[in-house]
């Protein structure tokens, strides 16, 4: 009960923050979509970091560490520490510069102009939105399972079917409603503020959870001694080829539509400097407690010294919620759950704004013309589409659940598979329109076929010849881009002059 009250209080705080930033909202589409490009270094860092840290990083990482051991950190987090900043440097900065110079609000606007093709947007739009849906799903599923884990037994009369826990469908519904409120109040500015606040909350609460759980298990050394030794090593949990191929997955940040939009909010190129340096450290501070909690969970016993903390057959998604629920006090459990919700919502908000922006700018305005709509109508259209996507995602949460980590990896693999497209667009003058079409089609087709072969994410150990599926998607996209570009006519001089300065 206490945990639920604290989470509700936290959600009310967010609604208040949304109201406040809404009062600063200028009411025009530029403010809604890119905060009038006025975000400074600290908010930019918090916003970008908060956006990349979602249920995947907290719920998913703990569950994956529980399932396959501490190598989870090396295969995705430390790789991200290097590669995320590299993506911000090699892709984010040039796109910010091109976006500011040419007034781009979305990735698709950039690709349409760079590849001299209006129709390319109609091919990219469904793919980007289609890949964002599993990402949103990861957030909503993660929120639902954590809340269910910590509130078990709190409402036996209200929710008898879940053992008295708040059911996942209700948590997902409330979380969606709160995020929708504060982004509707102030658009991307509101999302940036909420991200900053929530990033601070989830980092502090993660640390408190970590210290409390370790103390309850007899200290960090005792807790680590309880961990299953087989989960402390890479051998037997992940092959070298899998470990190597995981390195491609963090390239996904180069193609996330919401990160593209976050980058466009920067006031100047100098705003990015803090992000490059602080992002790896912030990743470490967020992931290490979760990885260790997952490792400890493999052998942790209740204070009676006999009963395992994690019941046999528990879902990896539930590990963090169970550890927090059983090994912390109700107040700390509530605060930590609020922190986890913060991590989840700080990604959902940017993703919601990004899909709304893409729909409005790339589909409606592009096909019907801007002059047909007032500023208010544009914002309304964005909100309407966001509601539709949230509804679709919400309906998916009611279907058979998937492992958060596995679903996240599939989503990131799709975006990472498209990385050759953005890299070629920025750095390769010879990249052509036909090459771009071929690259998108190859990535989409290969991703879908592999996702289908994995039982739509049900097989969380799915590989292709021992490597992660991202290798196939990435290679298909890169090969299609190179071969078809070389076989077709180079872009016009006007386009090259616009995108490649001497």
């Amino acid at each position, binding site marked *: 009960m206490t945990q639920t009250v604290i989470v509700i209080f936290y959600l009310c705080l967010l609604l208040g923050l949304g109201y406040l930033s809404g009062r600063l909202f200028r009411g025009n589409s530029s403010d809604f979509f890119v905060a009038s490009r006025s975000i400074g270094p600290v908010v930019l860092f918090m916003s970008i970091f908060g956006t990349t840290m979602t249920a995947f990083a907290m719920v998913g990482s703990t569950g994956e560490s529980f399932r396959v051991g501490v190598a989870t950190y090396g295969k995705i987090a430390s790789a991200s520490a290097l590669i995320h900043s590299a993506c911000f*440097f090699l892709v984010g900065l040039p796109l910010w510069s091109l976006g500011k110079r040419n007034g781009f609000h979305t990735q698709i606007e950039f690709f349409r102009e760079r590849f001299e093709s209006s129709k390319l947007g109609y091919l990219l739009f469904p793919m980007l939105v289609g890949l964002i849906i599993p990402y949103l799903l990861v957030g909503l599923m993660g929120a639902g399972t954590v809340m269910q884990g910590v509130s078990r037994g709190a409402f036996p009369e209200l929710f008898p079917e879940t053992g008295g826990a708040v059911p996942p469908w209700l948590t997902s519904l409330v979380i969606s409603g709160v995020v929708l409120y504060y982004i509707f109040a102030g658009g991307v500015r509101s999302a940036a503020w909420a991200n900053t606040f929530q990033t601070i909350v989830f980092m502090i609460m993660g640390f408190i959870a970590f210290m409390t759980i370790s103390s309850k298990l007899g200290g960090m050394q005792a807790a680590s001694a309880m961990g299953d030794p087989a989960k*402390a090593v890479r051998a037997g949990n992940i092959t070298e080829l899998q470990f190597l191929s995981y390195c491609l997955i963090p390239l996904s940040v180069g193609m996330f539509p919401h990160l593209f939009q976050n980058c466009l909010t920067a006031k100047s190129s100098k705003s990015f400097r803090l992000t490059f340096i602080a992002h790896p450290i912030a990743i470490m501070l967020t992931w290490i407690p979760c990885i260790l909690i997952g490792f400890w969970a493999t052998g942790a016993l209740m204070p009676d010294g006999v009963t395992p903390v994690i019941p046999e057959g528990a879902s990896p998604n539930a590990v963090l919620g169970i550890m927090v629920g059983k090994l912390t006090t109700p107040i700390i459990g509530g605060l930590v759950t609020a922190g986890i919700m913060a991590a989840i919502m700080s990604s959902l908000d940017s993703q919601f704004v990004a899909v709304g922006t893409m729909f409005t700018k790339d589909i409606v305005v592009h096909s019907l013309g801007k002059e047909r709509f007032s500023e208010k109508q544009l914002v309304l259209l964005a909100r309407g589409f966001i509601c539709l996507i949230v509804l679709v995602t919400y309906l998916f949460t009611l279907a058979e659940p998937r492992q958060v980590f596995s679903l996240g990896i599939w989503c990131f693999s799709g975006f990472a598979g498209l990385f050759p497209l953005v890299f070629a667009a920025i750095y390769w003058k010879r990249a052509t329109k036909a090459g771009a079409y071929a690259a998108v089609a190859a990535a989409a087709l290969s991703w879908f076929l592999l996702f289908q072969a994995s039982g739509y994410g049900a097989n969380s150990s799915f590989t292709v010849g021992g490597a992660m599926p991202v290798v196939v998607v990435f290679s298909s996209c890169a090969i299609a881009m190179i071969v078809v570009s070389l076989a077709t006519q180079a872009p016009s001089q006007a386009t090259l002059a616009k995108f490649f300065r001497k």
Partner: protein
Amino acid sequence: MKKLVLPIMILLFILHQDFWLRENGSLVFGILPATLAYHMLFTVLAALAWVMVVKYAWPQFPEEDDEEGSES
């Protein structure tokens, strides 16, 4: 310094593949499994590498892009 950015990043990428710790299950300070401790150190090295990039290899943008303020 700018010429060193790529070699440093490649070196970091190679260092990331800690296959030599593949079967090492010892706990550093009795808390951190060896591979986890190694990757924590790696993360700090990655952050330091980006400090160097920001300090010595920051790209120059056309002056109009770095003007502060609202878009037109």
